[in-house]
């Protein structure tokens, strides 16, 4: 964490320096958030870190004895493969979101005009409509007797229904669908900040539109792209319901495995160590992304 802080932009530098400093103000303004972070973010993480070194008894009850067994089991056992699978799926999802989200964000930023707010709202609104219910609708659309199959059969385009539901393909579509808005919004924010005069100047100087795009638009939207990728990648990695609902529970992602350890397996130490490993992996990835993407990514993150 220490190193990430260098990447954050100290906005306060922009502000008129106020020489009068009352120490009492710091606890007044920063007290509540510090309490929240220490009490309900760091403490719970420390607790599960602690639990991840504990043993379990015959009935799966927690035994207060030190062991490295849980961590070792994750590193050597099957969980490693689940980790890699999820990673692979999350990378694919992120790339697809980027491919779909980039043109859309660009279109809104460049040609949205007075419709901009509406166009942005139309991305946000579906993502606010009960996540679970939308996934359920996906089942209705892609099922054997679903909308797509019925449509294609009615038009005589196919004679046998296609199998879409419960395939890896539909899991991917579901993941992209769920997290796409999180890609578009930071991308749009980054592009909106671009000076139109910059593009015009480039055109006036005779820059080819393609060249203009690669030289100006793309580098300037890099921060947004990285922020969007982080916002897509992390929740995808931890996703749990899409593989269960659309994938027919045939493949587990890390999120499923964590959830399963806490619920079905009832092995809290083992679940804790998996959760800690997942968190650590993602923080590492985040750190690398920020290091690579620089501070503009951090600014666009929210």
């Amino acid at each position, binding site marked *: 964490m220490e190193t990430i802080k260098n990447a954050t932009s100290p906005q306060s530098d922009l502000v008129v320096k106020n020489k009068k400093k009352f120490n009492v103000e710091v606890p007044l303004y920063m007290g509540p958030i510090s309490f929240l972070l220490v009490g309900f973010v760091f403490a719970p993480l420390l607790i599960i870190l602690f639990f991840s070194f504990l043993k379990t008894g015959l009935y799966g009850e927690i035994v207060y004895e030190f062991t490295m067994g849980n961590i070792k089991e994750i590193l050597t056992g099957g969980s490693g493969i689940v980790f890699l699978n999820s990673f692979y799926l999350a990378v694919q999802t992120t790339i697809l979101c980027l491919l779909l989200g980039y043109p859309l964000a660009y279109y809104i930023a460049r040609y949205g005009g007075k419709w901009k707010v509406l166009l942005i709202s139309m991305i946000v609104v579906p993502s606010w409509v009960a996540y679970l219910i939308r996934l359920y609708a996906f089942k209705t659309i892609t099922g054997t007797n679903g909308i797509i199959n019925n449509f294609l059969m009615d038009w005589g385009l196919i004679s046998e229904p296609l199998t879409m539901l419960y395939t890896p393909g539909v899991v991917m579509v579901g993941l992209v669908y769920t997290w796409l808005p999180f890609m578009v919004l930071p991308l749009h924010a980054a592009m909106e900040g671009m000076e139109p005069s910059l593009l015009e100047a480039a055109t006036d100087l005779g820059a080819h539109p393609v060249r203009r795009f690669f030289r100006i638009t793309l580098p300037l939207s890099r921060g947004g792209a990285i922020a969007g990728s982080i916002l897509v990648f992390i929740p995808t990695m931890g996703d749990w319901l899409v593989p269960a609902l659309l*994938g027919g529970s045939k493949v587990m992602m890390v999120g*499923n495995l964590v959830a399963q350890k806490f619920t079905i397996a009832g092995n809290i130490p083992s679940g804790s160590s998996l959760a800690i490993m997942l968190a650590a992996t993602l923080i590492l990835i985040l750190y690398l992304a920020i290091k690579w993407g620089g501070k503009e990514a951090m600014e666009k993150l929210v």
Partner: protein
Amino acid sequence: MKKSSLTKNGLILMMAVSFILGVLAGPLNAASKYKDYPVPKACLDAVKKEGSKLYVYNWAEWWPQELFDDFSKEFGVEVIFDYYADTEEVVAKFKLNPKAPYDVVLGCSPFNVMVLKPMGIVSKLNYDWLPNVKEYMIEGYTKRAFDPGNHYQIPDSGYATLWAYNSDKVDDSVPGFHTWKFLFENEKYAGRITMLDNMYDVTGAALKSLGYSWTSDNEAELMEAKALILKQKPRVMAYDSWPRRAQVEGEAWLSGTWDGDAWLVHNEDVPALKAVLPEEGTLISANTDFIPTGAKHPAAAHLFLNYLYRPEVNALLIETIGYPPAHKHTMEFMSDEMKAWPGFILPEGYMEKCDSDDERMVTGRGKEIRLQIWEELKR
């Protein structure tokens, strides 16, 4: 209707129930010919003293809501719900929080009780406050090895794991059809099969199909079962413990399921759905209710369990959930079709082929290996 034998309250209740259930009112009405043994006054006083509340932990949307509503109305007890989606969740919740303040946990399996009892989470029942249960429990249910005399839990119904098929789509005349082996090994219906999304049931069924015990903790046997399950996976459409939608939509033709769930789909949605009680045998167990030691309203919990064994209440429950009753008289009021449903009345000698609740499945190596199989399957 034999109105003369009914009290006024009973009549109102009956009218409400018959309004809701329409044709089903007949059997429920008849159930009231058996006597209700009320709890002693001491229990009712204790309920008042506790504050007339009942915290229920149950499967979602399974039990009839009117059963709880009527209970509330009759005894003035406020019922507050929490739901779980898998009984293993119950175990996990109590492991984290042994004093979780639930008053009564409904619809668990004996396996959950076996795991929770040694941790001091299951409290002993007071049979003075359960006169209906004492009177009406089917005798067989009181003799199970894990809790002889039912001192720590009572079954509200039985269950058998089996599989169901759509008889419009599936040819059931092939030899060896009525077996676990067919479900696991047929290639004809690849992509039309759903299996329960539950490691105990899938491994158990595979073990039975191979001729072993459902609850085996023998590593070699479990490895054989694993091979069978992994081999079947490409033919499985989904692992889904509630394949109802897939059955209704005509997507799933063969589904691992439980007798009661299959009955409900057959009865309400897909008449062509039939169930197979596999020839190799299966797991015969019970839907189990218990009172945790963290309960703040144990008297209300006893009152409720006793209410559950009131003949007409039990008949309403069984009609709704579709599982074989644990109440002596309830079967009398069920339709002939329901009685004939696989799992309700077992064929002569079938029970000997079946396995029952055994701790070795859910503890130590038995559980560990199953978890490993499950993780490998879902990779």
